[in-house]
């Protein structure tokens, strides 16, 4: 029995994939790639896959995680390539490690989000972020299955910064980028809750829907407000850690074998 942890993305138009859609697509990719999966017992056996903390439908992600259980050992990097080939472009498997520690889900304490606000001037975004951060609490509302809910969006936000994105069209009002670090609390605070909060505290109203992407998930370093790679402990625990795709990209970038 081997457990493998994977990091995957939701890019481009496939960011509209819901988590349920992804699950079905992933389980089919496992079949196409002929991965020797362990199955649950019972009338309708299911392959053993644990999903952690999926990004909402419509938001992109560079950092989704899951864990699978195999009946025979496989090389994680080879498996990653096979699964990546088997999934549609945009759902890309970008990292794989053999699980050597417990509690991957416990290490997913916080997320780094990038929010692209087309048509919003960077200084306006900066003022809004400052207003948000200076507030003690920011009450927001969200429609849930159980009706309209009101909760605080401020406490979960560990960090919020505004940048300016290059805009090539003259006369364009500009494009602001928000970089957001959010703790995973209950109730979960999502990027769109923070956007509601920015509207409430600083009247920030983007003219077009924001493009939201999760850049990272992991342990939160409270002092620096940064998030660390949740697969690192598994890599460190490995006898002789083989290079992984994420590590490889950097290492091979200048003059790699390709």
């Amino acid at each position: 029995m081997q457990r493998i942890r994977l990091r995957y993305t939701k890019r481009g138009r496939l960011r509209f994939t819901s988590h349920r859609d992804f699950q079905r697509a992933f389980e089919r990719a496992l079949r196409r790639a002929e991965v020797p999966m362990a199955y649950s017992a019972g009338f309708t056996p299911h392959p053993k896959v644990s999903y952690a903390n999926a990004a909402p439908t419509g938001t992109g992600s560079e950092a989704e995680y899951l864990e699978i259980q195999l009946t025979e050992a496989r090389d994680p990097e080879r498996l990653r390539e096979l699964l990546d080939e088997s999934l549609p472009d945009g759902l890309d498997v970008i990292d794989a490690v053999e699980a050597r520690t417990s509690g991957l889900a416990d290490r997913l304490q916080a997320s780094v989000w990038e929010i692209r606000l087309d048509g919003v001037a960077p200084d306006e975004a900066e003022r809004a972020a400052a207003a948000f951060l200076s507030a003690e609490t920011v009450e927001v509302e969200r429609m849930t299955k159980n009706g309209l809910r009101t909760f605080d969006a401020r406490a979960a936000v560990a960090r919020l910064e505004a940048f300016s994105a290059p805009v090539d069209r003259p006369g364009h009002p500009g494009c602001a980028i928000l970089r957001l670090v959010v703790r995973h609390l209950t109730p979960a605070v999502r990027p769109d809750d923070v956007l509601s909060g920015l509207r409430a505290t600083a009247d920030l109203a983007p003219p077009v829907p924001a493009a939201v992407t999760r850049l990272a998930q992991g342990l939160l370093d409270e002092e620096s407000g940064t998030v660390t790679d949740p697969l690192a402990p598994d890599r460190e625990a490995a006898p002789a850690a083989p290079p992984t795709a994420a590590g490889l990209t950097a290492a091979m970038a200048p003059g790699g074998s390709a």
Partner: protein
Amino acid sequence: MSVESVFPQLEALLPHVQKPIQYVGGELNSTVKDWQSCDVRWALMYPDAYEVGLPNQGVMILYEVLNEREGVLAERTYSVWPDLEELMREHKVPQFTVDSHRPVAAFDVFGLSFSTELGYTNMLTALDLAGIPLDAADRGDDHPIVVAGGHAAFNPEPIADFIDCAVIGDGEQAVLEMTEIIRAWKAEGRPGGRDELLFRLARTGGVYVPKFYDVEYLTDGRIARVAPNRSGVPWRVSKHTVMDLDEWPYPKQPLVPLAETVHERMSVEIFRGCTRGCRFCQAGMITRPVRERSITGIGEMVDKGLKATGFEEVGLLSLSSADHTEIGDIAKGLADRYEEDKIGLSLPSTRVDAFNIDLANELTRNGRRSGLTFAPEGGSERIRKVINKMVSEEDLIRTVATAYGNGWRQVKLYFMCGLPTETDEDVLQIADMATKVIAKGREVSGKNDIRCTVSIGGFVPKPHTPFQWAPQLSAEETDARLEKLREKIRGDKKYGRSIGFRYHDGKPGIVEGLLSRGDRRVGAVIRAVYEDGGRFDGWREHFSYDRWMECAERTLPEFGVDVDWYTTRERGYEEVLPWDHLDSGLDKDWLWEDWQDALDETEVDDCRWTPCFDCGVCPQMSTEIQIGPTGRKLLPLSVVK
């Protein structure tokens, strides 16, 4: 001319709609070809929601057949839900294909597959969103040729105003023949414009172009005659029949959607056509003769298809799957092959008399034994003779006894209400049949927790069947009859609680009946309903009977006819039917004799196993029955790891 993707405009709308994934494309095994390097471009539509349209085998097959050809491109489009439709209108985003998000109006051909008439209003929505004039007469040389196919196209008259042409029968070769004609016409510099292209298509005898036919009416509203209005156009248009299914192993690379759809399985059509001769069944009549795919051909398609998709279920499709001459070996061979992989097998459309327990055991070997479904269709022995569904009550009881004895706990039975000559008594006997099923089940299983579900809907007479002359039962009478049946089942103290009862009320059937046997005048009703906001008529939450009736009352009196005239009126032998000039191969006199036999409660056999009954199809279409057994077996696949 390059054609821009509308995705950037669409993308901004997607966060505001339900299930946006259905509009983004990118399905596994989908194909995007270079626009410029293709000279004939098809937009294919299944005019219903993506979740219903994507798994449609017809569209999937044509998509692949066309895209395999050099210089030919096919992309898919589906009906958008009203939430997106509203935003598209507001932001001027046209109907788009999901493959490359190109506007539908930019293609050479816009092909729509109609499994049911209830997609007609969705066609009008799509045309309008695409910026293509609703009336074929208003289209210019730059608009796509709008072509209808699918079973409903066997009577395309109600949509004659809106389509440029219709093709009936199997589409695989037909789309390629059309492609060649369009390619040649474009290469010559489009001589004679749109009219000339349509004429070239029409003169093949395999493409129906409504505008080349004039319909004359009698004073009583019936049709006097339908005749070509220019020379070179044939009097009748023939259906297309593909012979040797093994040469057409499509889909080879079935599409695997990210969005959830109604069927998520590897479907293989194990044979096409059915000659059981059920008189209500349009599919069985218009797809003759029976053409089997060989056991080895099926095995190869399943193998390749599963590898290409990763599906966990195989569906062996046809109109009556247990009738394949080698079905036992197919089921056993596949169950053996995929036992380890936990692949389930399903056999939709199983006849009671073709069912056997060995087959059922093979089918459930890798899955669970939930329920079995049979369709006796009629409650009484008498009515089953009328409809030629030759299944006796003893057959049914024997079959369910075996099933309950082998561990099944639930049987579903399908019936129809409103069949020709039917009385309350025929329908009430459904309750008796269900109680006998439960009694037998309790007896053989020794348990009380067994169930039988009765599912029943209204019968709609269809063109090209022996019942094409029959009066349809009115919605009120259908509902009253179903209510009596419900009372009888409910009132049964001993068995009633073990019988589930599901029924569809009679109203949607009347609209389906109007569209099924309608003529060109019904087009005015469809247009009025569309303009009044009618969409997604196959969906209970969108369908409005009142809207259809109100629009019919507004548009039909001008022609001196009404909804009853099209639905509950019985037709006579001499009446010219709106679809008589569309040749399904069935001899009209044979159909009439079969209709008379129905009234006499006389049954007719299946010509697969008995001499020919002269329905006319094989000689008319130069086709023949193609069945096994081949005697071959499915070998285990060698596993290379």
